[in-house]
């Protein structure tokens, strides 16, 4: 019986090989360029928006098929499995938001050796595992923009203060340094950055610090909170203290969390990188690399449609641009995404 079993199996497998062999010849050559957006995991609104950006870019570029892929849970192993299949189907480019900056290097190298252009965005792969790493923004652009936003809200005059994360937070400290640079510009001569307080990225502490600021500076015109937890707590503090309209608020916030405060005017505008733009720009960069328009060397300039030019920097690190500004007009749409 075992013999019969194995004979049937061997025959069946052989048949499938012959059958498939014939099918392979008639398979049409795919003309479209396949550019993949490989995200940390599926079922995350942020990344669904990245996929929308990829589709938008593909539509503008014409002969591009934008493929959206991701593992079911956020693991490097899951992403590696997907990259192996992408190598097998000989796609033209992969943009990755990496679950692990190191673990993806060997397989990414394998992909590049097979002629596939690999870049990372949002969450980078360490140097050697990608050609370009697209950062949503940089310290200088973020810091300077925060001052511009608050100045617009309080008519370029008055005292402003910052509710930051922890006093050791590398990101926030770098941004605040650039805020201090920007406010020295002549346009802000009537403005003063009076104090930086630290809410430690805890809701209750951020809230108390914001209340403390308003008590200490009765003439306070604005609060900048470049952290998602801080801006939310500050918005609540301003409303609770009855200072809405008197103390303006801006910062970096999540649209879904900040929607009510943006719509009711407590925080009329805030910034954050926009996932749609990330997917859009990544696809443009992959296209430029895959068509051979640029090699990906430092100094190369890539035309990224509505996002303007992106310059490849040292070690492949490239900056997409100033963060996206959310206002009452566009907040509803993005609040559904992230």
């Amino acid at each position, binding site marked *: *019986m075992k013999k*019969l*079993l194995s004979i*049937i*199996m061997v025959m*069946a*497998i052989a*048949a*499938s*090989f012959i*059958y*498939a*062999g014939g*099918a*392979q010849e008639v*398979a049409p050559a795919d003309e479209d360029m396949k550019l993949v957006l490989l995200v940390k995991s*599926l*079922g995350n609104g942020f990344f669904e928006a990245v996929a929308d950006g990829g589709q938008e870019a593909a539509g503008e570029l014409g002969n591009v098929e934008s*493929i959206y*892929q*991701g*593992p*079911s*849970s956020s*693991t*490097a*192993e*899951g992403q*590696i*499995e*997907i990259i*192996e*299949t*992408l*190598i*097998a*189907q*000989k796609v033209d480019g992969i943009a990755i938001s990496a679950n*692990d900056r*190191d*673990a*993806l*290097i*060997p*397989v990414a190298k394998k992909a590049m050796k097979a002629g596939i252009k690999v870049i990372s965005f949002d969450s980078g792969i*360490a140097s050697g595992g990608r050609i370009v790493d697209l950062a949503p923004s940089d310290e200088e652009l973020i810091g300077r923009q925060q001052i511009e936003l608050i100045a617009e809200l309080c008519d370029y005059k008055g005292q402003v203060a910052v509710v930051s994360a922890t006093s050791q937070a590398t990101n926030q400290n770098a941004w605040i340094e650039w805020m201090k640079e920007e406010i020295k510009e002549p346009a802000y001569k009537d403005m003063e950055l009076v104090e930086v307080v630290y809410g430690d990225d805890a809701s209750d502490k951020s809230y108390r610090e914001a209340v403390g600021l308003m008590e200490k500076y009765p003439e306070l015109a604005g609060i900048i909170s470049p952290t998602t937890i801080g801006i939310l707590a500050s918005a609540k503090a301003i409303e609770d203290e009855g200072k809405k309209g008197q103390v303006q608020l801006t910062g970096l916030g999540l649209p879904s969390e900040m929607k009510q405060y943006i719509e009711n005017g407590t925080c009329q505008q805030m910034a954050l990188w926009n996932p749609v733009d990330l997917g859009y720009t990544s696809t443009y960069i992959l296209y430029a690399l895959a068509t051979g328009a640029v090699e990906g060397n430092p100094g190369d300039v890539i035309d990224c449609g509505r996002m303007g030019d992106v310059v490849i920097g040292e070690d492949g690190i490239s900056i997409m641009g100033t963060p996206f500004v959310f206002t009452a007009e566009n907040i509803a749409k993005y609040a559904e995404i992230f």
Partner: protein
Amino acid sequence: MAEKKRELVSGSRLVDENSLKERLIVIFTKWEVILAVLIVFEFILFSNLSPYFLDYFNLMNSTFTFMEKAIMALPMIFIIMSGDIDISIASIIALCSFSMGFASSHEIGAAGIVIIGLLAGLSAGMVNGFLVTSFKMPAIAVTLATQSIFRGISQAILEDQAYTKYPEKFAYFGQGYLGETLIPFELVLFLVLAAIMGFVLHKTQYGRKLYAIGNSKEAARFSGVKVDRARFINFTLMGLFCGISAVLLTSRIGSTRPNIALGWDMEVITLVVLGGVSITGGKGNLFGVLMAIFLLGYLKFGMGLINLSAKVMIITTGLLLIIAVLLPGFLDTVKARRKLRRQQKESGMVEV
């Protein structure tokens, strides 16, 4: 005993009578044969859907992504066969990988790293085995606890850091090919290990003991089987094989992070159950698991090739699992009914 003998005799006579049709029914209601047919179907399907599926390099290369889990499935057959379970295996990988990273950061060479990884796995397995057999605790409770402990050790020390420096030679185990061929080293190692474990399970006294333990621990104990010793050996083997897997995986991704191999415990158990090994023990064989490994591995690969989302993959696996669990019972009832009807018919004929 005498009854059983008579049943066998009458059974074989029936097969003779109904010849080919009956024999085909017997074969095609075997779960591993159904799996084999599914593999053939899968190959036909995907080679029609994607021109890249039936490609020698791709078929070989894609095994990289499931060989480590396949290796872990082998001793898991032993464990599930004897009515136990081990849900700490992914954490053992983390512990092994952490030990190797630690060794590597102290300038130990490739061979030393491998030995340390294997030893870490072996000892973790022995801890599981010791706890399960000495304190008479259910395996699921013990391994649930060690699941947290084994991974916790690497989490506590590494936090959000990673070991990323491994010697160049070390990369061979998880990225290398056999000589000048396109056959991955991981695949060869798996096939060798599968042959050894298959031999132990199906051709040695030890294997037969496992079936006996799985059917009834008490009965096995009364008939002189050293149940706890066998279970201890199973868990130790599981640990050792996790060590082997950890060497391959760490080498393949060239780095160690505390969340390495997260979720693999369930994936490995899935392979074994889908392979037809009864989750309550005592039933199944290695061939079925072998089929399940390649069925799922190539299913994932094929779905990836046509860019199906991972969600579809999860649902498909879930459906297959339900079938795998339900079908054997269903087939048994059908078979029993057929037999009963036939026996009735036979006895009726005798009476006439």
